[in-house]
């Protein structure tokens, strides 16, 4: 019985229920690591440490040329606004209800930025933004969950491409729309058991 979902698992469930079952219930996917993923992980960690205020000069000095360039850009972008970040690597766990059954959404916000009463969810992408960012399930899930935490609709989703050094913003639309979308996908499997 599965009752806990992440943005990624919902994406797979939406696309192909069998693939979801194979991956998350029978646990049939091979654990593969690739270079890009490692690059992404490293930068996530580096940014988080930077925002928390740790001294990362030694680690930065060991990056290769390309990586250093990327870091320089990030540092420039983030330093002036550093103090507005209120959370880093922020895990969330949201309990939801659907037709008298409960399910849970889990995940981790890369960083939460707050300016006055507006929240911006920053998400670091190594290269490309999602194709349809406004409808992308990650956006949907993150919006819904942050709403549940801070009880506000003044939320923006900011996808930041590390290599391109640019970002796009998505505005919060409608909480019901997000909940319905998630419910729709979850219901594909939630009532199977």
């Amino acid at each position, binding site marked *: 019985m599965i009752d806990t979902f992440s943005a990624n698992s919902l994406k797979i469930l939406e696309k192909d229920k069998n693939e979801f079952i194979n991956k998350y219930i029978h646990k049939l996917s091979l654990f593969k690591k690739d270079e890009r993923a490692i690059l992404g992980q*490293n930068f996530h960690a580096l940014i988080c440490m930077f925002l928390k205020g740790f*001294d990362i000069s030694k680690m930065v000095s060991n990056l290769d040329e390309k990586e250093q360039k990327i870091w320089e850009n990030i540092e420039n972008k983030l330093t002036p606004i550093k103090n507005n970040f209120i959370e880093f690597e922020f895990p969330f*766990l*949201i309990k*939801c209800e659907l037709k008298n059954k409960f399910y849970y959404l889990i995940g981790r916000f890369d960083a939460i930025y707050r300016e006055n009463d507006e929240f911006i969810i920053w998400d670091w992408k190594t290269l490309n933004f999602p194709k349809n960012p406004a409808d992308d399930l990650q956006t949907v899930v993150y919006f819904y969950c942050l709403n549940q935490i801070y009880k506000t609709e003044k939320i923006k989703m900011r996808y930041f491409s590390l290599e391109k050094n640019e970002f796009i913003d998505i505005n919060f639309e409608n909480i019901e729309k997000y909940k319905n979308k998630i419910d729709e996908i979850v219901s594909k499997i939630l009532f199977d058991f």
Partner: protein
Amino acid sequence: MLINANSTTNRTKILIDEYLKLLSSGIDARKILVLVQNPKKKKEFIDEIKEKLPVGNIGNLKIYSFFGLVYNYILDNWAIIENTIKDKKSKIIPNMCGLEVSQYIFKECIQEVNFLGYNSKTSLLHQLLRRNSLINLNSLKEDEIEKRTKILQETYSKEANLAINKYKMKTIDLRAFDYIRQINLFEFLYKKLKNEFEYVFLDDGDEITPCVFEYLKHIKPTVKEFFIGYDILGSSRLGYLGAININFEEFLNEKAKTISEENEKTKLAKEILENVKNDIPIKQENVDFKPFLKRSEMLDCVLEDIKNLIKNGAKPSDISIITPVCDDFLKTSLEKAGFEFNFLTKNEKLNQNKLIGYILELLKIFNDGKNIFVSPYVLKGIFIELLNFDKIETIKIIQEYIITQELQNKSILDIIKEKNIPVFQKLIEIFEQTRFEKLSVQLIAIIENFVKIDKKISKDIIKINQLLKQIYDFEEIFSNTVENLDLINQLENTIISENPLSDDEINPNSIIVSTAQKIIDYSHKTKYQFWLDTKNENWLKQDIGPLYNAWVMQKKWDKESFDLEDNIELTKDRTARILYKLFLLGNKITLYSSVWDNLGFENFFGIDKFFTFEEKKETTDEKPITPRKDQEDVLKYSGGLMSVSATAGSGKTTIMLLLVEKLLSGEILGNIEPKNIFVLTFMESAARNFKEKIKAKYPSLKELPNISTIHGLALRIIKENNNYTKLGLDYNFEIVDEIKRNMLLSEILNILGISQDKLELYSSAISAYKSEIANYNYKTDNKLFLSVFELYQQGLKSQYWIDYDDLLCYSLKLLKENKDILKYYQDLTKIIIEDEAQDSSEIQQSLITLLGGKNNNIIRCGDINQAITSTFTNSDPKGFKKFIEKSKSVIMDRCQRCATGVLDCANSTVEWAKGQKIDAFSDLIMKPVENKNIVDKNAYQTHIFEKEIDEVNFVINSLKDILKNDPKATIGILLRSNFAINKWDKVLSDVAIKTYRNSDNLINNPVYRICLLILEFIVNPYDIKKIQELSRELYELNLISFEDFQFAQNLQEPIFLNNSPDNFEHQFYWDMNYFLYKNHYSIYNLVFEIGSFYFSKTTNKDNIELVATIAQKIFQSQKTFENSVSKMREIQYKNNFANIKFFSNSNNEDKSAKVQIMTLHKSKGDEFDYVFIPELTQNNLCFSEAEYVLKENSKFIQKVKKYPKNDIELKKEIIEENARLIYVGITRAKKKLYLSVAQKYKIFNREKEQKPSEFLENIL
């Protein structure tokens, strides 16, 4: 808040409620730390919270197992550590690796540190890992380590500490930390950083380790409130798992609330705890005890009981099986039963999984630049299992590979490259693409292309992912400086141990099989608990080794020393706590035990000594045996010293059985326990048979009398209560088996330039010498022998071996030098009964005298007239003679076995010897039993033939007559030497008379024989002769039909090539094909399957496990399947391997209509309807001192004795023994006896005149 309560209470629930209260009062979840014992408990805690909280944001829950907290803490604050490391390198994310990486690093460190002279059997690596783990779990500082080094008087502490320090430096350098190493980093961090938790919850506080407690102590000043739940009687993880008892009341300065749910279960569990601690055996109605002799019987009963429970409505999840011995035998037996079992033990090698095994082998091929010959057996598995290639074609290609390998050194890849077959082309393609890539890339390529990933292999995928993670760790940490082939080697040889962050999937519909600790760790409650192998000593695990001592390394150790008593007490204490916690988790508990483990070794000291049960000494409904008049005297025994001289065939075993029954019923010595009765037999098989007879008579008897050989008893004395430490023995000591002992001697003879054919000589001499040392404190001045002896002793010591003579000498030493041990055994031995007393050695007799020294109830049974081993072993019949003189002597002189004529012959022999002044016999005339013996004055015949061929023909014709007229008769041909056995074996098989060689050889056992033949067939499926031999053996054992036998005999082609439908009707064809293509990665499983297929419903079923284990052990040293099979064939005539002795049942094989051929010596104890004793020449059986030529053997041994016998004395003794030898031969015959000799024999191809033996002329 402090709660002292056990796991049957709602202690955890209370903690959860408090937690929820805090949350609902507005406290941020991030400020509340919850520490639980393991990931499973964490999941349960979180699930409860999730369920109870309303919809919406649950929050950032900080609920961790301790190692989870450590892990996250380090990752969150890594920058601090990285900045503290003073080198220019850096890593952004450290590698939190598994223990495999640490093992690899430690191996390097060990090589760099010189452990001069260290040679304990337990690997240095294992010792260091344990030491390191204990130091970290207990947060021991340097001065604390030093203090303990002094207490333990460790010899290698300096080197060990050096190695550990090197290891620490390397891990820093590599930024690779396993969960134990992470503890150090965690300590460093929390001491530096501010504590963020205002509230701390701790459950299972009794199971925490000092490193956790140090952390709690450190953060206490800034914590607003603690909520701790613990069970003051718990702490099952004391010892090497690192837990300690913590005084939480002192820590929190508050009194603990005790949840007063004193339910029945709690009361019971507490009682058990007290009883075990105080050595009071527990008597419980809720606990049932089912003892068995063999482990297979035990398992059969367990399965029956499970079946019955389920039939009566129980669910699989209501049952848990708890055993410390979760081995292949258990797994295979349970899995065959058809229930769903969930095995929770984790310590296994990765490549025990078949799929992974084959993938690793394929990876070896990919990465092997030198074209090393791959085992064809493995190749077969790869082709069929992994590549799904056609079976018959596989065999053909492998054959091609074997042949071309010898000629051209082609690799298997070269061969398949030339084939135009899609799957091979694919394989070559992948090989070419990935041959220079990382191992992980190769592995993924193989899986993605050849493994069908679906839910049937989900368990395999989990293991594959574990493997992948390990490979990634290595690749990342060592930046690809480890060669692929080395990495594979490393992975194959590491045993995957606990990953504390992983969580067992417990399938709710299956029966859990686990060790006790795991059940406790998971607080796994079930209605029914089945405790298996309760006699096995692994229930009381030892915690000490040369480089670590789990007790002394506890943080709170404050004694200045560590003694034997400490070890016993602490182990007992921990066992008490484990049993206490187990009892809390089950309602109905059943203990199952077996006297013998899988390999036939006796189990000594398990936990069933803590329990006592109503002894139901009810016998079965068999007709009670009425003793004869001459036997009655024995049963009139009322105590004291008694000797029973029992002539051949007088029913001695039956009488001994009756005697034991009388003792059990209290008629002789009053109410004594079975454990106070000691019975010593000569052979292991006799002991086993005796035990089985007692068990059959008293099926509900919980505890059997002590029935063993003297060596079995000696071993027990050495092992019990860790007595061996008083001898300076390592706890790992092992009894060297015959094969290894001979190898050691052989090497020594080589070194000293002595010829190898003196091996037997030196072997016996060493044994005799050890006896001399023990009896007389003597030292020989024979320099050459002394050098051999000293090297031999050194050789034993270096491997932590002792030999069989040491067993006796050491146990004697223990009793002589330790008053408390002597008292213990003398109190225990209320009566001791010895069988075959005439063969008892001096040491054995000393032991018996000592043991029986307090109660003085000693009964020794034997027959002086049948002492036939005293001239070449340590047996001392004179000792028995002396005992007869000073004890109450009972004589059983009625022989029920032999025909009257045979009795006459035997008695005449005795008379004649007396007349010749050969002092061989006691004055015992054999008498028949009224109305029982066959009356036949002519029961024996003697013949003197002119030529050898005449004698042979006579025997053959007589045999043919017998086989025609008395087809169910048993027949024995008794000879003087093994050489003669070969001759007569051939002679008879030439005329198609079936023979049966009686010997203890491995090959004699049908399971060994059949499995070996089938294994050889698998190695070479082209060998038609092998198939024919196999079919003949199977047919003779009635395991295949005559049609199948004929089918096999008529084969023209190798069986697997035979695809004609005519063959499909032959079961044999299917079976052989099945075994040929059945790809078990492990030889154990293959042999087990073959053995089970043919023998699981026969009396040989207990030997299946033994043969499989022998094969497995051989494989461990031979490394390939093919070499293992050759080795099994090579040792076929040995008596045992690694001291494993087959279970034999004298009804095992149908010996009628087969002629049994054996030496006179081996015939003792046996009986036959018809007995032939040919070749009675003076050479073979000499009675003339003048004519007899002493053999070198006999003279040699005298050289090492304190009171050596001169040649005359020796000759006299040998002649006396010859007389007894023929006497034994004669008394084997029930119906007819044929004594014969010829006047000319072929010796080394030349006909020589031979004189008949003197006694024969007389009997004539």
